[in-house]
């Protein structure tokens, strides 16, 4: 692109936000303890970033580490306290 004549009318991107690995922004990572998890899927419901994956009813929820920004809402909402937030640089 060299001049204003080369631009489209407005901006658009060729991929969806899924291609942006916002997981690199994290300072804290949610860790789900499957021994405490009752699969109520509250974490999946509350995650504002669609970063808790449940493929099939009955599966344990899994955190999508490519996109999870570490906001901690899942840990806060989990009724059994199955989710802990751990600092990224303490996890080997």
């Amino acid at each position, binding site marked *: 692109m060299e001049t204003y004549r080369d631009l489209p009318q407005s901006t658009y991107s060729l991929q969806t936000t899924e291609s942006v690995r916002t997981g*690199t*922004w*994290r*300072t804290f990572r949610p860790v789900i303890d499957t021994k405490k998890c009752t699969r109520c899927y509250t974490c999946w419901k509350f995650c504002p970033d669609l970063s808790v994956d449940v493929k099939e009813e009955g599966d344990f929820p899994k955190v999508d580490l490519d996109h999870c920004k570490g906001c901690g809402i899942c840990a806060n909402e989990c009724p059994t306290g199955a989710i802990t937030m751990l600092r990224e*640089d303490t996890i080997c």
Partner: protein
Amino acid sequence: MIEIRFHGRGGQGAVVASELLARAAVMNRLHAAAFPFFGVERRGAPVTAFCRIDLKPIRTHSEIYFPDYVVVLDPDLVGMTNVLQGLKPDGIVLINTAKEGCDVRGVKWGKVATVDATSIALKHGLGSENAPIVNTAIIGAFSKICPQVPLESVIESIMKASPGNKEANAAAAKEAFEGVKGVW
């Protein structure tokens, strides 16, 4: 007026370095301004920060294109970004590295100063192995190569405004000041 550009990674404290340096200049009765590259920042991504120091009040608000000094907080950045971009012909580069007489991009630049800020920072308990906080050490080293900002002012600035353990940060700055090598 002198203009300084800092290159770091998100989390290393490049932006705080620029702020502490500006404070040091003000404590040395000069005028100063400090600002980050204006944009979305994230941990681990390259971060650029800037500082202006002058005898007279600083009125300009344009960006810095031709710095007099370039400070590199992470030697890996030398391969990733063109840290020398716009550096004035007689400008000085200060790099955080254990290697002496560092070749920047394989081209021997006239004035390259080096300091092992990472080891110094870790020795004083600043940050962790994966994420050392080198900013206070680096500005201690910077005061060695820049007469406008004497070490006393840098220490004063750190004791006033540095986050974390102020004494440890000040000690790191002092040790880095002593440990600068190179030709400038």
